[in-house]
């Protein structure tokens, strides 16, 4: 308890400037919003509640992470169906069978029951060698079957013959012997909720997004909400870009995120995650200096149509955060998250509790504020 309090207090960062509220007021609000609604000091900062123009009525349109987790989710999720999103093998088979555009599935590695797309074994070193040789594989992603938010993902960008085996080069240019990779995968195959690893194509992103940062796959996160009349709405989206030489675009791992105008696909305000100590807004990518504010995302209409279609056929889960890559040929859904974080979405788009969303959520029994 004391440790938790210390950690919370350690995250308090009081702002000083002509646009900021007084430090006393900031401290009072942090305490009050924390005790009454569960907002953390990090959320207070991320949502810029310290600014003078953030009135209480506006602040109360935001939902705290705690409210989303403990009040909203239990009302809109049928736990039994989460496996569709949480297990990447089933995710691929379910949405792929329904015509949703996904990255090409290449195989499933498992030391006991792994298999290639044509159901040949993919369990050990010899199977892997045969697979690479037979299919002429040169690049692929390895993802833990039960992994979340990119953790444990490995990108293999180059495969070179080495004696009677192979050497792999990952996204950071590090070289791996095939034997070492297989040993590592076999050892950790049962570490996540679902065992094994899926193997996927390396997605080529749209040239426009590649120009902004080419070392990472820059994706959009779109939130969908199933309405009481069973139609689907996509009320919020953000676009995320990785930093130079980083191969992840995640906001929590140093990337920069931008709000997206839902009607047009134009990027609005961008910011870093406040945990990196800056809340400054950037109209341009900090490394390539490509101007992002006002940039129109390619295939935006198609992107919205894909996530709405995917959300509409997902039984029992009324709100999903979809990660979508945009390729030269259109959008591909990378994953769907039932436990999406509200922080990036609200930081860049404003509070979730617009009057329209509030009515929809009230229908599901969410009675807050």
């Amino acid at each position, binding site marked *: 308890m004391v440790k938790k309090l210390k950690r919370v207090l350690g995250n308090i960062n009081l702002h000083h400037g002509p646009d900021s509220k007084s430090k006393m007021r900031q401290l009072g609000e942090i305490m009050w919003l924390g005790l009454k609604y569960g907002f953390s000091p990090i959320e207070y900062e991320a949502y810029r509640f310290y600014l003078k123009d953030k009135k209480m009525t506006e602040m109360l349109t935001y939902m705290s992470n705690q409210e989303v987790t403990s009040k909203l989710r239990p009302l809109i999720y049928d736990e039994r169906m989460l496996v569709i999103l949480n297990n990447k093998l089933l995710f691929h088979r379910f949405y792929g069978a329904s015509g949703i555009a996904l990255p090409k599935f290449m195989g499933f590695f498992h030391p006991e029951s792994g298999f290639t797309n044509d159901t040949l074994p993919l369990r050990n070193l010899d199977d892997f060698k045969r697979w690479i040789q037979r299919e002429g594989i040169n690049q692929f992603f390895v993802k833990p079957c039960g992994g979340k938010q990119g953790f444990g993902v490995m990108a293999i960008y180059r495969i070179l013959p080495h004696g009677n085996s192979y050497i792999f080069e990952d996204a950071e240019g590090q070289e791996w012997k095939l034997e070492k990779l297989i040993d590592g995968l076999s050892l950790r195959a049962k570490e996540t909720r679902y065992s094994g690893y899926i193997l996927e194509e390396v997605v080529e992103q749209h040239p426009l997004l590649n120009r902004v940062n080419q070392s990472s796959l820059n994706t959009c996160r779109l939130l969908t909400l199933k309405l009481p009349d*069973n139609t689907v709405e996509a009320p919020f989206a953000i676009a995320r870009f990785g930093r130079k030489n980083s191969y992840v675009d995640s906001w929590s791992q140093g990337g920069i995120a931008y709000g997206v105008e839902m009607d047009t696909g134009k990027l609005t305000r961008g910011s870093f995650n406040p945990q990196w100590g800056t809340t400054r807004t950037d109209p341009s990518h900090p490394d390539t200096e490509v101007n992002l504010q006002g940039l129109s995302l390619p295939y935006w209409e198609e992107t919205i149509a894909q996530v709405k279609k995917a959300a509409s056929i997902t039984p029992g889960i009324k709100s999903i955060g979809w990660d979508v890559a945009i390729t030269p040929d259109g959008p591909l859904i990378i994953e769907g998250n039932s436990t999406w974080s509200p922080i990036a979405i609200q930081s860049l788009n404003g509070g979730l509790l617009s009057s329209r969303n509030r009515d929809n959520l009230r229908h599901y029994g969410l009675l807050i504020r």
Partner: protein
Amino acid sequence: MIGKLKRSLNNVNLHHSPESKSKLRQLREILWLGLRYRFSPIEYQAYRFYLQEKDFPDMMTYLSNYEISFKIRQRLINPKMQAMLTNKLLFHGFYQSYGIPTPRFYGYYHQESGFTADGHPLKNQEDFYLWIKRAGLKQMFIKPCGGKQGSGIMAINNIIENGGDLILEDVRGQIWQTGELVECLKEEADGASYPGYIFQEIIKQHPALNQVNSTSVNCCRLLTIRRPNGTVTLPFAVFRFGRSGHYVDSWSQGGIAYDIDRETGILTRGSYNPQWGDTHKVSHHPDSNIKLEGFQIPYWKELKEMVIKAAYITPDIRSIGWDVAVSPHGPILLEGNSLWSPILYQSMNGGFLNEENKETLRQYGFKVR
């Protein structure tokens, strides 16, 4: 405790015939096997332990339902992955995508997320009406998405247009209007573990099997166990036939089961479920009088290959009881059960603990008697 004891004693059925052990010995064995290995009196009867030829070493090759359920199965399956077998929507999408024939999928009815195989919504009465008209369907199976062992299944035999509405006739001759049927589908089926209903084709069975009994789809039930090295064994295989006028082949509902020679696919010994009181061998189908001892199951080689492939590609579930139908064009995978009951298998095929299965269990670290 007393209630449970009373129930057990009620199931005690002591046999009296020249081939039977003395009643005192039967009683003593029932008590001893019950206390030591948790065999129930029903299992004692099903496995014909009352026969003089069943000596102690033979009885010890059988596993009780309790031992299978609480000692063995628990370690052979990851409960989180059971959804891919128990959720018919996921089951269909997964196995179909790997080229394993399953009954043709027509659609999924769910008030929030239903969809047809051709990508249209299937969420209400209007969707249902438009879909049937568009697809021109006349027959279908309706199955609860999370139903078990055939419960809640409805077979629609005929659909006719009637002045802007549809009239549907099920196999029992009951007539349904679209509104009545859709009203039923809004409710989750009793005991179903997932929401919604799937619509599938009514399978046409192979003429040789149809000739034996045409009112039921006569199915093969096979048990597969995957070893740690990925090889799949087939410890049990049983074929079931329904009785004339019955549309289920289930042994527990009056059908006849036959042991299968796993090498050749030829039926050997047949019997009714001993709970019906008849423990004699059945050489012919009692209604069509077709000789079943020596009957060759069509497409046996393909059937075995299919379940071995299905068992291999099912991650984290090492032991599965499969239901397979045989159509004029080959085998069709109907269902997989991770919670298979040993009674039918051991009654027909003998005790589980032969040398091959003991070796499999040893490889998973079980101590076998």
